[in-house]
C-alpha cells in the first residue's frame, strides 16, 4: 500500500502553536561561563554564602568534566558540540521592585501566559478545578498563584529563589540530597548556574487541596534555561504536581538543563506529571530545544510512593530518565511515559528504579511513538539491591511506528543482587495497522482523526494517569504533534 507512508507523514507534521516571542525588556548578563558568571547570578539573587558555595563547588566540578570528556556520549542522540561559552546564563524580564501581588505583574507577561492557555488569575478553571501556578519566564519566576490559600494549610509553594531566602533550612537540608551536584554533566552545570524554579513543601499529614504546577517558558534568544525544582512531602503528606513548558520558534538550538528532586517521607505520596512541549525544531531539524534533564525522586520513608507521568512531544532532543530511589521498605515507584518523535526529533528517555528497601515495588509503562525520521530509545534500569527482599518490578515498553523512516529502540538494563525478587519485562513494536485505520475511516472518521484516535488509544494506560484536565490537554497535544505525518 504505497500511499500509506506518505499518508501517515501528513499527520505528524505540526504547526507549533506556541512559537511566538514576547517583546519585553530584559535584564541579561553577557554570554559566557566562568566563575564570575556564577557569582553574578548568585549576586543578582542576593543569595546567602552557603548557596553561592554550592554553586561554586558545582562549577569547579563542571569545569573538570568539561576538560575530561564534555557531554555524555552513551545516549542514542546526535547533535553538534555545544559551546558552553556562547550561552546566556541569566535573562529576566525587567521589573521595578519585588511584586506584592499578581496585579503588579507586567500585563505583557500576563498576556503571554494567557496565549499559552495558562491562567495566572486566581480563579477556578472552567473544569472547576483549582490549580496553583508558578510561572517561570526565562531565568525567573514571575508569579505564583494561590499562595495564601496554601499557606493556611502550612503548605509552602513558591519560586526557588524565594525559598532560598525564606526557607533556608529546608533548602539546605534537601537541595542536592537526591541529585548530588556532581551527579552527571548536565546536573552539574545546572547546580552551578540554575536561575529559578519551584519549591514546595507539604507538611506532615497534609493532603494538598489543589494541583500545584509550574509553567516554564523560554523567551529570550541565546539563553539557556536551568531551573531547579524541589518538592518535599513530609510524613503522610500527598501532592500532585504538574509542569508544562513551551518556547518560541528559533533557528538556533537552545539548551534546557533542569534538575528536579523529590523527597517522600513515611507514607507520603508525590505524583509528578509533565507535559513537555518545548519547540521541537522545524521539519528539517533546524532549531529546537535540547532538553537534557535530571529528575529523581527518593522514596525515603516506609510505604512512600512517587509516581512520574510524562508526555513528551516537544524538543529537538530529549535526554531524561525520571527515576526513583526506593529506600523505604514497601515504598512504590512508578513511571508512565508517552514520548513522541516526529520529523528529525530525537529522544532517549526512560527511567531508573533502584530497589533498596524490602518489598519495594515499581511499575514502568513506556509508550513510544515515532513518525517522520524521528528516532527514539527507551533506556531503563531496574536495580534490585542486596537487601531488597521481595522487590517486584513490572516493565512494559511499547513502540508504535508511523511510516518506515523512523526508528524505535529498547535498552532494558537489569541488575539483580537479590534473588528473592521478581522482575518482569515486556516489549512490543508495532505499526499502525491498516485494518484499524480503514475501520475508523469506514465509520466516517477522517484519516487524521483516525490516527489520532488510534495513537491516543495506544497511550491510554499512561494518559489515564494524568490529572483529569491535563489529560485532555495531552490528548490534544498528541493530535497536534501528529498533524501532517499523513500525506
Amino acid at each position, binding site marked *: *500500500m504505497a*500511499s*500509506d507512508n506518505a499518508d501517515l507523514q501528513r499527520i505528524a507534521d505540526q504547526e507549533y502553536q506556541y512559537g511566538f516571542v514576547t517583546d519585553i525588556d530584559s535584564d541579561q548578563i553577557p554570554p559566557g561561563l566562568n566563575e564570575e558568571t556564577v557569582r553574578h547570578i548568585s549576586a543578582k539573587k542576593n543569595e546567602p554564602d552557603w548557596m553561592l558555595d554550592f554553586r561554586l563547588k558545582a562549577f569547579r566540578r563542571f569545569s573538570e568534566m568539561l576538560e575530561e570528556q564534555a557531554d555524555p556520549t552513551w545516549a542514542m542522540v546526535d547533535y553538534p558540540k555545544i559551546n558552553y561559552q556562547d550561552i546566556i546564563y541569566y535573562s529576566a524580564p525587567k521589573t521595578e521592585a519585588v511584586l506584592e501581588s499578581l496585579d503588579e505583574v507586567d500585563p505583557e507577561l500576563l498576556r503571554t501566559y494567557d496565549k499559552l492557555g495558562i491562567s495566572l488569575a486566581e480563579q477556578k478553571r472552567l473544569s472547576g478545578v483549582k490549580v496553583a501556578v508558578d510561572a517561570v519566564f526565562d531565568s525567573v519566576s514571575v508569579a505564583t498563584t494561590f499562595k495564601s490559600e496554601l499557606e493556611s494549610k502550612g503548605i509552602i509553594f513558591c519560586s526557588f529563589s524565594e525559598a532560598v531566602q525564606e526557607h533556608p533550612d529546608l533548602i539546605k537540608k534537601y537541595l542536592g540530597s537526591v541529585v548530588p551536584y556532581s551527579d552527571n554533566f548536565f546536573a552539574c552545570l545546572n547546580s552551578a548556574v540554575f536561575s529559578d524554579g519551584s519549591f514546595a513543601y507539604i507538611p506532615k499529614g497534609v493532603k494538598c487541596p489543589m494541583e500545584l504546577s509550574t509553567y516554564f517558558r523560554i523567551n529570550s534568544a541565546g539563553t539557556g534555561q536551568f531551573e531547579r525544582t524541589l518538592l518535599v512531602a513530609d510524613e503522610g503528606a500527598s501532592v500532585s504536581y504538574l509542569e508544562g513548558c513551551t518556547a518560541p520558534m528559533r533557528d538556533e538550538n537552545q539548551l534546557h538543563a533542569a534538575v528536579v528532586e523529590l523527597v517522600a517521607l513515611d507514607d507520603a505520596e508525590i505524583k509528578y506529571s509533565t507535559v513537555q512541549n518545548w519547540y521541537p525544531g522545524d521539519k528539517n531539524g533546524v532549531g529546537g530545544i535540547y532538553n537534557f534533564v535530571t529528575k529523581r525522586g527518593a522514596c525515603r520513608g516506609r510505604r512512600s510512593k512517587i509516581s512520574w507521568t510524562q508526555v513528551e512531544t516537544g524538543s529537538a532532543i530529549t535526554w531524561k530518565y525520571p527515576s526513583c530511589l526506593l529506600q523505604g521498605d514497601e515504598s512504590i515507584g512508578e513511571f508512565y511515559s508517552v514520548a513522541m518523535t516526529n520529523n528529525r526529533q530525537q529522544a532517549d528517555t526512560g527511567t531508573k528504579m533502584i530497589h533498596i528497601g524490602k518489598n519495594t515495588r515499581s511499575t514502568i509503562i513506556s509508550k513510544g511513538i515515532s513518525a517522520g525520521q524521528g528516532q527514539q530509545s527507551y533506556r531503563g534500569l531496574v536495580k534490585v539491591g542486596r537487601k531488597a527482599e521481595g522487590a517486584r518490578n513490572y516493565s512494559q515498553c511499547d513502540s508504535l511506528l508511523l511510516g518506515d523512516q523512523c526508528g524505535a529502540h529498547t535498552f532494558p538494563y537489569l541488575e539483580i543482587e537479590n534473588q528473592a525478587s521478581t522482575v518482569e519485562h515486556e516489549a512490543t513494536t508495532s505499526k499502525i*495497522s*491498516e*485494518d*484499524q485505520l*480503514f*475501520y*475508523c*475511516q*469506514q*465509520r*466516517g*472518521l*477522517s*484519516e487524521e*482523526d*483516525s490516527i489520532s*484516535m*488510534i495513537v*491516543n*488509544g*495506544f*497511550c*491510554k*494506560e499512561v494518559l489515564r494517569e494524568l490529572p483529569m484536565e491535563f489529560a485532555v490537554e495531552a490528548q490534544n497535544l498528541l493530535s497536534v504533534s501528529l498533524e501532517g505525518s499523513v500525506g
Partner: protein
Amino acid sequence: MLEIKNLFAQVDDKEILSGIDLNIGAGEVHAIMGPNGSGKSTLSNVLAGRAGYEVTGGSVTFEGKNLLDMDPEIRAREGIFLAFQYPAEIPGVSNDYFLKASLNAVRSHRGESELDAMDFLEISREKMKQVEMPDDLMSRAINEGFSGGEKKRNEVLQMLLLEPKMCVLDETDSGLDIDALRVVAEGVNALRNESRSMLVITHYQRLLEYIVPDKVHVLSGGRIVRTGGSELALELEEKGYGWIEAST
C-alpha cells in the same frame, strides 16, 4: 441506489474482480453467495474504498455520484456502511467514544447537529437492547477481547446507529450460533425499509432464511455467474458450489 458496471479490480497486481455488473435499487436487498476466494470481500472492500484495492476498469455510481472518486470516510458519511467480516480491534479506544465520534462525523456531514454525551447515551442504549448487547461492551476497547458473536453484534449496532443508506454485510453470519444469528438478523431486518438498500454477502443459505433477499447472485472467479430469486440460495445449498462452477 448503487450501480456497478463492468468492474475490474486488482490486489497486489493480481486481478480479483473481472467484470462485475450489479444494480441495486432503493429498498432492495441483494445477496451475494460464492465459494471462498471468489472475491466477495474484495468487492465489499472496493465499494468501501480500502487502500490497496485498485480499480482497473468499470464504474460504480452511488445515488448518481461517482463513488470511486470519494475517500473512504466520505463514502461512509454519504451512507455506505460495511459490516466487516473481521472487525478490527483498537486497544485503548472505548467503544462508546468511537461510536459517538463516528455518529457525529456522519451527522455533521448530513447537516445535523452533533449529539452530546447524554443524547448519545440515550440513543445507544435503545439500539443496544435491539441487538441484546451487554452494557459493559460499550465501555470496553473496540472489539478487543470480544467474542466472534460480540464483534458481529457490534457491527450491527453501529449500523443501527448510523442508519446508512446502503448496508454491505460481509459474512456477518459466519461463526454465529443460532441465537446470535437470530439477533443479528432481526437487527438487520429492523433497518429494512423502502429507501434503504442492502448487499448481504454470505457463504451459507442459512442467513437468507432470516433475511429474505429480493435477488441472489452467485460470484465465482471474480464474476457474477448466475442471478435469481431467493430460491437460488436453496438450490445452491442443495447442489453445492461445484454445480455452478461445473455449469459455467
